[in-house]
């Protein structure tokens, strides 16, 4: 591994046909936008599913207009059946975790900006890169077909625990064909991820332009690099797990099904398998996966904040080491999803310690962010609002982890809405805020147009308040013992909680509607927004040296030469600017830091 390397002269030629320009493009920027569009479509689908779920939970036996047309079996007379609720829930989670949270912050923004930020013309394997998008897109199509098979999608949750997920259609509607489709879609998704991670890692290691040492890389590049290392290892475990699951369905194997099970008064024809094996395989992937979902967002937030605070972070090293620590520890904590699963209770204590320790790097990052705000010249715009919102959400979502990390407390909170609140705050909100922040920040660069700042701010305010109204009450429900994944609340101790659910539903529908503002802003600004300058935010990293939008070969055939890291903010320069771009040979006269 060498510190600097010259990028090859031309990675691929300019696109000539419509197809090679917009469809089967080798250009990392187009691929990044394709991923973004996929994630945008997926998030709309995922959100609509969540609205249906929430309406049903608040008003269980009410007929939802139009639902019967969508699924006569799933909603006879418009009333959602319990299995349809679970099926929508499974698809909601699967679509959101994989096609939104793994795709947008990592594949979309990473593909677009990683090569640019390291000063390269493209990634080293553009064909693999193109294949990674189309594979991911294919995975999405495969997943969506589950809605259209006779018995519908699987109902076992995105976690798909065995034996429910392995026995087949006797275990429930959708557990036959739908479950196999789900597993196949995920297996294909893994392939796309592996191809993408390959490119990301080799871009960082081999494609950095002259002067771009590893220590000068912007924090976003490190975040994407760490995430792709995790992606390689985590998805490499999910893929065989899905294959084993499919084999249990179609090849008569029993990896996950022991003997002696009875369904419908008949012996299930499997024997020799282990129920817990699925959980170990899944969570060994699943826990790193949630850090794959958040670390790019942390990188984006750090990047956006530095630019908008006009000063570097108090310690970039602390942030980087913390991100590495999060990645490393994430593999050691997975058993905290299994505290009461029936594994050896001593293992539960063992897993709880790295889980508690992971609070340390998380807290370091949060405190560095907050501490860096001190004495800064914080610019408020939509991108920085969402970045600041991310911090608030990450704190909220993170502290519920203090409870869930302890097995003794998990006895009360396992599988309750407390867990659902926890992961929605960190993933459903914080990670989404990272995506929003990145969008508002980089939209001008990607499209050449500025987004409407007023609409952006309204979007932020209503979403910030709305998501707190939705997800904070989840914690109260969980604290009271409200079990999760229930299609209806018929138990005596749950009935009094239904009004809370109704409040949440109204907040969710309202906040969902607010996202239309974002969609409008995206589309309208793309075509009618005012022209964007090359560097609207006065940023230092290499994406800001190119025109908005960039040409097909990024730097116009001339590799940039880098003299600084990306933290040259709050400096005194001869020109009077308070920042120096990475490719500028100018040296700071002094830092502007005082005490």
């Amino acid at each position, binding site marked *: 591994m060498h510190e600097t390397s010259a990028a090859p002269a031309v990675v691929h030629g300019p696109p000539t046909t419509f197809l090679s320009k917009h469809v089967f493009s080798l250009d990392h920027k187009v691929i990044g936008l394709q991923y973004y569009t996929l994630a945008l479509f997926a998030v709309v689908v995922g959100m609509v599913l969540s609205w249906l779920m929430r309406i049903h939970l608040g008003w*269980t*036996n009410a007929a939802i207009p139009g639902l019967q047309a969508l699924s006569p*079996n799933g909603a*006879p*007379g418009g*009333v*959602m*059946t*319990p*299995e*349809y609720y679970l099926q929508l829930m499974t698809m909601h989670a699967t679509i959101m975790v994989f096609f939104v949270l793994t795709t947008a912050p990592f594949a979309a923004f990473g593909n677009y900006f990683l090569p640019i930020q390291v000063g390269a013309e493209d990634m080293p394997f553009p064909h693999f890169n193109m294949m990674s998008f189309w594979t991911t897109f294919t995975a999405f199509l495969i997943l969506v077909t589950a809605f259209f098979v006779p018995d519908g999608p699987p109902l076992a949750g995105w976690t798909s625990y065995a034996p429910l997920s392995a026995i087949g259609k006797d275990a*429930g*509607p959708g557990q036959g064909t739908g479950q196999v489709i789900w597993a196949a879609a995920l297996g294909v998704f893994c392939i796309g991820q592996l191809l993408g991670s390959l490119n990301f890692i080799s871009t960082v290691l081999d494609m950095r332009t002259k002067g771009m040492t590893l220590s000068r890389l912007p924090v976003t590049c490190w975040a994407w690099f760490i995430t792709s290392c995790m992606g390689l290892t985590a998805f490499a475990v999910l893929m065989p797990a899905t294959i084993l699951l499919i084999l249990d369905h179609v090849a008569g194997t029993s990896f996950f099904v022991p003997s002696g099970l009875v369904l*419908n*008064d008949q012996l299930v024809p499997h024997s020799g398998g282990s129920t817990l094996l699925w959980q170990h395989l899944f969570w060994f992937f699943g826990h790193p996966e949630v850090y794959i979902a958040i670390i790019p967002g942390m990188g984006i937030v750090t990047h956006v904040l530095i630019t908008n605070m006009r000063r570097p972070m108090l310690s970039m090293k602390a942030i980087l080491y913390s991100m590495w620590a999060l990645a490393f520890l994430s593999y050691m904590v997975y058993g905290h999803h299994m505290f009461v699963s029936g594994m050896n209770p001593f293992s539960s204590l063992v897993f709880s310690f790295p889980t508690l320790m992971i609070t340390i790097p998380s807290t370091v990052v949060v405190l560095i962010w907050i501490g860096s705000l001190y004495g800064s010249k914080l610019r408020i715009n939509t991108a920085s609002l969402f970045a600041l919102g991310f911090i608030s959400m990450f704190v909220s979502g993170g502290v519920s982890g203090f409870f869930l990390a302890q097995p003794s407390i998990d006895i009360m909170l396992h599988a309750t809405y407390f867990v659902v609140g926890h992961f929605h705050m960190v993933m459903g909100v914080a990670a989404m805020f990272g995506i929003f922040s990145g969008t508002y920040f980089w939209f001008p660069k990607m499209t050449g147009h500025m987004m409407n700042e007023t609409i952006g701010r309204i979007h932020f305010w209503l979403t910030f308040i709305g998501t707190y109204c939705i997800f904070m009450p989840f914690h109260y429900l969980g604290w009271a013992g409200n079990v999760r994944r229930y299609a*209806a609340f*018929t138990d005596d101790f749950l009935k009094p909680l239904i009004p809370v659910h109704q409040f949440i539903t109204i907040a969710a529908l309202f906040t969902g509607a607010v996202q239309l503002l974002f969609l409008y802003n995206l589309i309208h600004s793309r075509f009618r927004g005012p022209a964007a300058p090359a560097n609207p935010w006065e940023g230092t990293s290499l994406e800001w040296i190119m025109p908005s939008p960039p040409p097909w070969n990024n730097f116009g055939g001339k590799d940039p030469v880098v003299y600084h890291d990306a933290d040259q903010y709050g400096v005194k320069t001869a020109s009077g600017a308070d920042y120096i771009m990475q490719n500028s040979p100018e040296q700071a006269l002094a830092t502007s830091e005082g005490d």
Partner: protein
Amino acid sequence: MTLKHICLAAAATLAVVTMTAAGPGSGTISGKITYEGTPAKQKPIDMSKEPSCAAKHPTPITTETVVTGPGNTLENVVVYISAGAPDEAAPSTTADFDQKGCQYVPHMLAFQVGQELKIANDDQTSHNIHPLAKINREWNKSQPPGTPPIIDKYDKAEMIHVKCNIHPWMSGTFAVLKNSHYAVSDKDGNFKLPNLPPGKYTVTAWHEPDQEMTQDVVISGGENKTVSFVFKLKPY
């Protein structure tokens, strides 16, 4: 013509018409189903997990896998013509199956191939009806309270065990039959198969889960033939 002649002619016409309506010499097979041996003990069903259903049964209902009466009679046996009668098109009436108080009413529902089956949910809870068909298409559907009846039909003859996926104690049977000559024995074990044209018939009596007895009966005219079946029952 005198009045006497008119009356005689009218009476003769009436007699012919009546006999033609009943079919030229159509007979009836009827009888009683009884058992010998010890039937399996029927146990009370505790519906405490579903209070809205438990409330409908101040005295808990019992299982209905073997329903007996005084004199060793057996209820819920479906008796039908399994050979000797042609297959018939389904009638236009529906076969009604009710979920009431978390119980299937009737426990044994006999109807024809192609006949419309109508399943209603009278309870405040969702049910998930699951007919475990092996020859026909197996399906299960949830039916939330207040939603319209489920309408379906079967296109092959089969004895189908029906269960509810949500309430494990609910149990019933669909007897899907090829013609209209069937009956289900009542609480006194009695059954009646009327309107049988002259011919040689095989009568089958079927009791859940899989006990079957047959007898051959010849109908030559408008007589009523009595047939009895004695099932051998074991306690386990």
